[in-house]
């Protein structure tokens, strides 16, 4: 008897709560934008640098999110379209193909459609010729243009470290920043100001 009564009370309570939220459900229906927590992205600014990445982003509770991705370095298919300002020598002409890894912890100010700050970390391995590691402190903003289309623009300032077996600089070759570009050196570091434009599919 008591059991039945408890179940009935529970059901009534649940129904009342449900009807309450349903009162305002029309106003809360934003086509799933707020509930969205996963986006599959690619980075347009990396594609034009001969890196084709695929990135998965997951938003945790309280605005914290994590982006992780892998990419193919396709220098054998096409040469990077953009060239760093002040580059002097032939740019990346001899670079081998390879793979890239990407990770970024980031924090959204108010949900997916807002300003975010993060630390993007890139690692690129060009065959057995050279490798690059870079990180920066980035600030950006994401827009959901429709329920499933996201655009994310980010900029920042950070460091790049390049390692090459034959002690030549392949990746940037910046006379302005690198004080001794002609001196053989297997390890080089530079300040970078990257810009990233990502387009994604909101799951």
């Amino acid at each position, binding site marked *: 008897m008591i059991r039945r009564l408890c179940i009935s009370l529970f059901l009534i309570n649940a129904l009342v709560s449900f009807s309450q*939220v349903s*009162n305002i459900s029309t*106003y*809360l229906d*934003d086509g799933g*934008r707020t509930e969205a927590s996963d986006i599959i992205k690619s980075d347009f600014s990396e594609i034009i640098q001969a890196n084709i990445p695929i990135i998965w982003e997951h938003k945790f*509770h309280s*605005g914290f999110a994590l982006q992780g991705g892998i990419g193919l370095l396709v220098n054998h298919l096409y040469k990077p379209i953009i060239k760093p300002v002040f580059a002097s020598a032939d740019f990346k002409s001899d670079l081998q193909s390879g793979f890239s890894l990407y990770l970024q912890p980031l*924090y959204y100010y108010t949900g997916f459609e807002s300003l975010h700050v993060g630390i993007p970390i890139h690692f690129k391995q060009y065959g057995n010729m050279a490798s690059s590691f870079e990180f920066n402190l980035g600030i950006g903003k994401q827009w959901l243009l429709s329920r499933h289309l996201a655009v994310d623009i980010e900029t920042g300032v950070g460091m790049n470290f390049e390692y090459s077996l034959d002690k030549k600089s392949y990746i940037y070759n910046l006379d302005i920043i690198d004080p001794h570009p002609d001196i053989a050196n297997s390890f080089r570091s530079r300040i970078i100001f990257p810009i990233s434009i990502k387009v994604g599919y909101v799951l």
Partner: protein
Amino acid sequence: MKLFKILFLLLLLLNTSIFYAQIQTPNSISNPDIKWDLTQKKFPEGFISSVKILKSDNDYIYYYLKSFKVLIMGFNYNHFLVKYDRKTCDYAFLDITPSKKNKKLEILTADTLDNKFHVYSYFHNKKLKKLFVFDESFDYQTLKPYNDINKFCEIDLTEKGSLLENMFLVSDNNKLLFRYSCEDVKGKYYGLEVFNKKLEREWGSFNMAKTENGYNYESDYKIDNNGNVYAIQRNYERKSDIYKHYDRSRVWVVCYLKDASEPVSTALILKNDLFITAERLAINTKNQVVIAGLYAQPGTESAVGGFSFVLEPNLTKISSVQTNEFTKQLLAKGLDSKKMNEDTKKIVEKKDFEKNFGYRFNDIYFRKDGCFDLVAEKYYSVTVTYKNSSTTYYYFDDLLVLNFNADGSFKWIQKIPKYEYVIDMYSDIGGYYLYHDKNDGMNFIFNIANYVPQFIGYKHKSSTVKLRLDKEGNESFNEMISDSEISCTIVPDYIYLENNDNLIITRANTVKTIMPFMDKYNNIMFGLLKQRN
């Protein structure tokens, strides 16, 4: 080593003597009796961050409690109604956090209205490009929800630029004001929506509300009997001066008229280039606009006088402008015990003797005869980081009490010298509680508190006092709690005046908490102070 010991003893003695000197006044009366309840059981739903007593009767105390929970990244706030049994010292509570019902709802504010407890929340629907504001009410005496959540405000943001997340809801004069702001390439716009106490929309406006070029910041919204909205606007020419150089800003009073498309405004200018350092706005029973506060001399930050403006309804005319320069005696009052090694006269004669301090005001209080008063508390806080750990020092300093006649002229000015120098979580025991008694006396309750550095860390010493100013500004003084251990947990903000003029005093053990070991002190305790007069 010996020298170090002597030095330490000297410091201890000096500190004790300053503390002792502060709490002794000629009119001191013996300790009043406070009957303390048992310590309440630990609050199980997060760390208590604030308590507001809503009502009390012989059997129960009803209060609104805010707590926070630490998450992996950041923390979130939860909201509860609590019913406390005065006989058993036990309590029951109801979770009223809107996001528990629907994660999309963000709380705006929560307060009593028409004997119900209302929780206001909002949702920015980016698909519909609309902002919705909701209301849900609760019976705080039975801890039952009315299950009546409904939308009472809808704002179309289609052509209003980006919504800024700094919206708020103000309750004044039996009306509610919802203020939001948006920004586009042209600048910042302010939106106002006014509702009656049944939450029916009366009117709204969306304006740039620019009094002059530069950076305009609005605050202190008040609603008159006709539903018009008034606010203080401070204008800065340069961004770098915002909230730093009040002397490089100008103060305006702005009126949003119910039936007009554009607001009207009037600059508040004092003679001889005196500038307003801090101010407060209120509407009196005649619907006149009253602005009172403190002023300083050009090139300085220290308040050297008080002022008042009285303006006719809708800002049609300035009826009165009054200033009153503080006397040297008033400025020097209490300095002797604080700055023992400095020449008091020298301090007062310094051009900028109170640099770095700001002023916190209570609301302007109107008496039955139209006279009004205003209290300013000198306040300063600073965070010091050393070896990866940071400490925030809070200085709740003297009170300046300005008392005015109904026409805005000065009746009297008093200074209540005090110091509450506290660290980190102990900031809760700073500040003061003010209530007006039946004889028009102003009663202040505060802690005289000071942190004492130890070999490892620090500890706080405190005593709780009550100071009364009668309607002529004469002082009398009570020491309420001399036990430092108890006094160090008294939070003035949590004090509640019952209908029978008794006071409920709250001991918040939470101030003793050191993160992340929060559980041990996560409770409060009530005490009853029966008033003799």
